[in-house]
């Protein structure tokens, strides 16, 4: 079994397959990162967060990163290359898709239904909640029962308490956020210490990432993880089955890794890029691309922020970042609105003084004597609703190969073409106005809004559509490529639709389900001769 990418889904698959006795090799272009590398405890933390630990590979520009041409994209795409993948820099907001997210064609007449349902994934959500250490409060009425995160909820803080009270008065849904951040010491990991730095590496190891939740066990069970290995092509034999991959190491040497089964876990940009790079005589438009859908229907969840400022010092630079509380009040479709589907709101803290002075989200810098008044107003006194919703698939939003740009190995870089759709815009406009009402009811005396955040492409979804019809999709409901029977895709690229929640919980649940399939059907799996 060969896995490309040691991030969220790659780790989940590797741990399961290794435990089941498979020979597992994983190729990862990045490296391991120790907890003491992360910048949280350093006074220069906020400076380092904007470069060495920036979310955009174009900003970091590390040797293991590949550049992404975003000249024709409304939103910058964000990712991390290393063991643990983008989990190193994610917030840990651990939300499941809702049942209706799997059937938007049937219910709302848009996009496509998934070939699987919430109930198909539910057992895997429950398994991965435990593996990643989800902390939250059970019984959220926004989900069907059972909904029982295995660890207690994290503290929501003074600002979120104000908003929770406000939503109670408004009669609107709110619930303590579920985060893949341990609230208690468990499974050899420390509990959250509320550093407020989840997005730039957790120095406690409390935030789940597969480097410590999955890879160490997978390696103990015999998996081999090769770092600094950049895969450039999937190889296919005469029988149409995958035989392995070509990869390049940092010394420029080219290698071949043979395999019986190839599993792609390289995110919706990296996986699409690799399939397109794997074009050959029998598949000139890219591997698995007979449908023409490889790279198409990229979804990234256009993101808005609404910031409320309060009179009291809330010390909102501390605390987990993923979600203090969430609201699904306006998540489901409502025919009275001028858009379909809806959005999730996550309440987040607002960072330290450099972020207050030079806001990366809502708000503007102020200079001169008033700068000091601005800082007293903003630092620690705000809470921010982060809002994103269903990002309907558009075949013109896509990943292609850039004709000029290359990575440090000379391999063609991806180009992202992405425009925010009309439905997303109308949805965000509606949600922003409701979020203002929320914060004003909570007692905010000033509201700032950011109607579209460019650096918000954390959620990389689509580009290798899952479906039952080989003429219209790339993989089936198990992530198996229609055209290459021993090639599986387990990252967010397979999502037919985006839903309106953070995708990681669903990505790893889907990956766990595919891994179980591989284990159950090991005697029947076709491999290259």
């Amino acid at each position, binding site marked *: 079994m060969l896995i490309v990418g040691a991030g969220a889904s790659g780790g989940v698959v590797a741990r399961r397959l290794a435990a089941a006795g498979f020979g597992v090799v994983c190729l990862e272009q990045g490296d391991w990162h120790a907890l003491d590398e992360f910048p949280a405890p350093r006074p220069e933390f906020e*400076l380092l967060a904007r470069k060495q630990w920036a979310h955009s590979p174009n900003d970091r520009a590390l040797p293991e990163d590949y550049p992404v041409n975003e000249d024709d994209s409304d939103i910058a795409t964000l990712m991390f290359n290393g063991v643990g993948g983008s989990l190193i820099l994610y917030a840990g907001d651990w939300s499941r898709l809702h049942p209706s997210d799997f059937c938007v064609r049937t219910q709302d007449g848009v996009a496509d239904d998934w070939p699987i349902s919430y109930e198909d994934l539910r057992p895997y959500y429950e398994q991965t909640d435990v593996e990643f250490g989800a902390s939250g*409060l059970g*019984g959220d*009425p926004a989900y069907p029962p059972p909904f029982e995160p295995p660890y207690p909820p*994290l503290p929501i803080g003074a600002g979120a308490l104000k908003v929770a009270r406000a939503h109670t008065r408004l009669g609107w*849904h709110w619930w303590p956020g579920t985060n893949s951040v341990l609230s208690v010491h468990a499974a050899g990991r420390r509990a959250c*210490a509320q550093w407020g730095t989840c997005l730039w590496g957790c120095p406690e190891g409390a935030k789940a990432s597969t480097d410590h939740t999955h890879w160490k066990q997978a390696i103990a069970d015999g998996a081999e993880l090769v770092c600094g290995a950049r895969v450039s092509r999937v190889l296919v034999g005469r029988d149409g089955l995958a035989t392995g991959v070509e990869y390049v190491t940092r010394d420029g040497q080219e290698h071949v890794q043979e395999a019986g089964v190839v599993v792609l876990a390289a995110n919706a940009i990296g996986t699409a890029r690799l399939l397109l790079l794997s074009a050959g005589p029998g598949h000139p438009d890219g591997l698995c691309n007979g449908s023409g859908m490889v790279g198409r229907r990229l979804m990234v969840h256009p993101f808005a922020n609404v910031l409320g400022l309060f009179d009291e010092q809330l010390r909102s630079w501390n605390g987990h970042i993923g979600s203090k509380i969430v609201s699904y009040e306006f998540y489901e479709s409502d025919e009275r609105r001028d858009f379909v589907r809806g959005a999730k709101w996550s309440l987040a803290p607002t960072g330290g003084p450099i972020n207050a*002075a030079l806001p990366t989200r809502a708000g503007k810098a102020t200079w*001169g004597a008033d700068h000091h008044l601005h800082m007293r107003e903003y630092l620690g006194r705000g809470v921010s609703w982060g809002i994103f919703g269903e990002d309907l698939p558009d075949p013109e939003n896509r990943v292609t190969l850039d004709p000029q740009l290359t990575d440090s190995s000379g391999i063609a870089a991806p180009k992202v073409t992405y425009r925010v759709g009309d439905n997303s815009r109308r949805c965000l406009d509606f949600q922003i106005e409701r979020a203002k009402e929320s914060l004003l009811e909570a007692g905010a005396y000033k509201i700032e809004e950011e109607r579209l955040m460019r650096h918000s492409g954390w959620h990389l979804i689509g580009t290798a559509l899952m479906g039952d019809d080989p003429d219209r999709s790339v993989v089936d409901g198990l992530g198996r490529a229609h055209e290459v029977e021993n090639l599986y895709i387990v990252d967010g690229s397979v999502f037919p639709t985006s839903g309106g929640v953070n995708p990681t919980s669903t990505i790893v649940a889907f990956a766990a389900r595919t891994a179980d399939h591989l284990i159950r059907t090991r005697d029947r799996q076709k491999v290259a001769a």
Partner: protein
Amino acid sequence: MSHGAAPIGDPQRDRLRVFADVLIPSAHDMPAASEVGVADRQLDVVLGARPDLAEPLARALARVDPGDHEGSLARLRDADPAAHDALLLTVVGGYYIHRDVRRRLGYTGQVPVEVRPEIIPDYVDEGLVEPLLARGPIYRQVPDAGGLTSGSSILDHSSDRSARRMSSDELQGRP
């Protein structure tokens, strides 16, 4: 200057000192940028952490006019956004890393704070969860999503991981 690919010399530091004080002057019981060494020791700290800033900072200092900081900043932003951003981040970074500035603002830095999950949250004490449960499910039912039963019982997340069911009364902290 001991850090960075493009050293920032004394004439540039003088220019940075003047411009930084325009951006962050002494006012409202806060020191000016130059008073905490934004163009001196703090600049070394900033460039030590971010050597990549040195080159665009040098470009910025060659173009900005402290006598017209708003106009020259706007022109710089349009002509050379990387230089513009480097200048502002250097000033702000040096200022807010300084210990005395942080103390005056009451900013502790990013520090660990113990999580105490055994303490009943205020939102439970105040009865904020009960109305949500009383309202019932808000998710949209689909054919195989399970019944629309109310989330009327919730797992008690005790710190020793001995999960048990707790009633709504217990959830509200009532005996």
